[in-house]
């Protein structure tokens, strides 16, 4: 069992045990095992078609497995999908949709009762916009924001779900270098309060934020990241890719 050893006393937030998954008898994931502890910042890397998106979809409860080998906070993912704060990649949402920033963040409160959002929902949404230093943009139009600002709003939306776990899907694919650096600083800040999973292709940036790395290519392999030993990581990744 691969474990992200941050604190041995705390119970793992995510447990994946002997997970296998196939599309039309084509195995995408085989016997995958890992655990993610509270406070970790896990980068999920691997080649295209290696199973990263499938793994993410299983963790988000979008795909179900026949055996109950995946648990998030000791529950089946489909039952606790609301517990995950998901930040989508750019092409998952409509960038030009006419909507105000506050309304985007309020979507994190969806699923409650009533026709409209409550005062409490609005309070939570504004609090999280403030955390992302975007409270002055609450009444701005979402399409008028820059790529980096849009991402902060989407993070505020994920935080508004009152989650413990943030899941980023290719977070830097639409950002310039400056915005990417700001994003990694933000990620490290968020990691003080949240457990973070980041699916990324951007291998060279992984050492900037990750505490541990999960390589997914049908099976998984795991590396606990040590600051200052970036070269070890690159060698390890190269070996995995060559295999």
């Amino acid at each position: 069992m691969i474990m992200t050893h941050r604190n041995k006393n705390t119970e793992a937030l995510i447990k994946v045990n002997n997970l296998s998954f196939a599309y039309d008898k084509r195995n995408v994931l085989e016997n995958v095992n890992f655990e993610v502890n509270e406070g970790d910042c896990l980068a999920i890397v691997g080649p295209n078609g290696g199973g990263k998106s499938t793994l993410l979809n299983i963790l988000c409860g979008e795909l179900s497995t026949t055996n109950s080998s995946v648990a998030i906070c000791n529950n089946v993912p489909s039952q606790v999908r609301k517990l995950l704060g998901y930040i989508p990649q750019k092409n998952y949402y409509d960038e030009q949709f006419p909507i105000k920033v506050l309304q985007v963040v309020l979507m994190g409160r969806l699923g409650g009762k009533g026709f409209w959002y409550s005062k409490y929902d609005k309070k939570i949404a504004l609090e999280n916009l403030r955390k992302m230093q975007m409270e002055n943009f609450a009444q701005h139009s979402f399409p008028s924001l820059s790529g980096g600002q849009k991402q902060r709003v989407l993070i505020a939306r994920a935080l508004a779900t009152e989650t413990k776990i943030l899941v980023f899907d290719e977070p830097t694919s639409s950002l310039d270098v400056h915005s990417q650096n700001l994003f990694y600083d933000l990620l490290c800040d968020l990691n003080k309060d949240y457990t973070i999973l980041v699916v990324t292709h951007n291998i060279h940036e992984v050492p900037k934020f990750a505490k541990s790395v999960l390589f997914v290519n049908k099976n998984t392999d795991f590396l606990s990241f040590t600051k200052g030993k970036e070269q070890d990581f690159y060698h390890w990744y190269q070996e995995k890719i060559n295999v």
Partner: protein
Amino acid sequence: MFEFITALQEFAFLRYALIAGILASISCGIVGAFVVTKRISYLAGAISHFVLGGIGIARYLNIVHGWTFLDPMYGAVIFALLAAIFIGYVRFWHKQREDTIIGVMWAVGMAVGVMFISQTPGYNEDLMTYLFGNILLVTAEDLRIIAVLDVIIVVLCIFFYRSLVAICFDEHFAKLRGIKVRRLYILLLCLTAMTVVLLVTVVGIVMVIALLTIPAGIASQFAKSLGQMMLLATLLSIVFVTSGLGVSYQYDVPSGATIIIISGIIYVISAVFSSSRFRFKN
């Protein structure tokens, strides 16, 4: 225009036409905003053409078999809803390409409609009425059906507003928040289907997509939120229908075509204005 206002006081059919146009504009503005932002205008096109099948069968049963209770508009509503449910079902459960479904429904609906209308005794002019609309033929009974459909559409939109906005903006996230995305998408298609039926009476099957998308398209260039977009689209739609009716009455030209031509001209002007404003800003 003064002549039109005088005629409104004089002729009941003209008043019915104006009321029908305004009622249809309310649904058109609200549902049109969803259709444009969700980019499903071609699904609306397929539904509108499929509706001819329902109109044809209802009219055939009404005239040939004496089913007088079956107004062609009921046939339109039933076929529009069937089309909406079928498109949603095929998209989600059979994973078929949407453009293929659109093509099939578009043509099959028209074919069924033409077949039944040709077998129904009476004026073939009716086919032209359904295809290109004639709002001046709206009856008091039609007006009642239009009002009921309008109320249903507006109430459902208010009831499901935040979930509909969520699935139009980010379907994936909405699903994670526990929203029943498939059911809501089919509901959105059903709302579109009912709006299509309302608009068929105003501009006819062929031009429904234009009236459903042009006001919302213009509104989207200026609105900061979906609510603003809906309000602006509704007002624009009322302006287009009223001015189109007035011009068609004044110059004795087809009302549906006049409404669409006016809408099209305003759309081009707004697009030019909007792009020059964007260039100026940058």
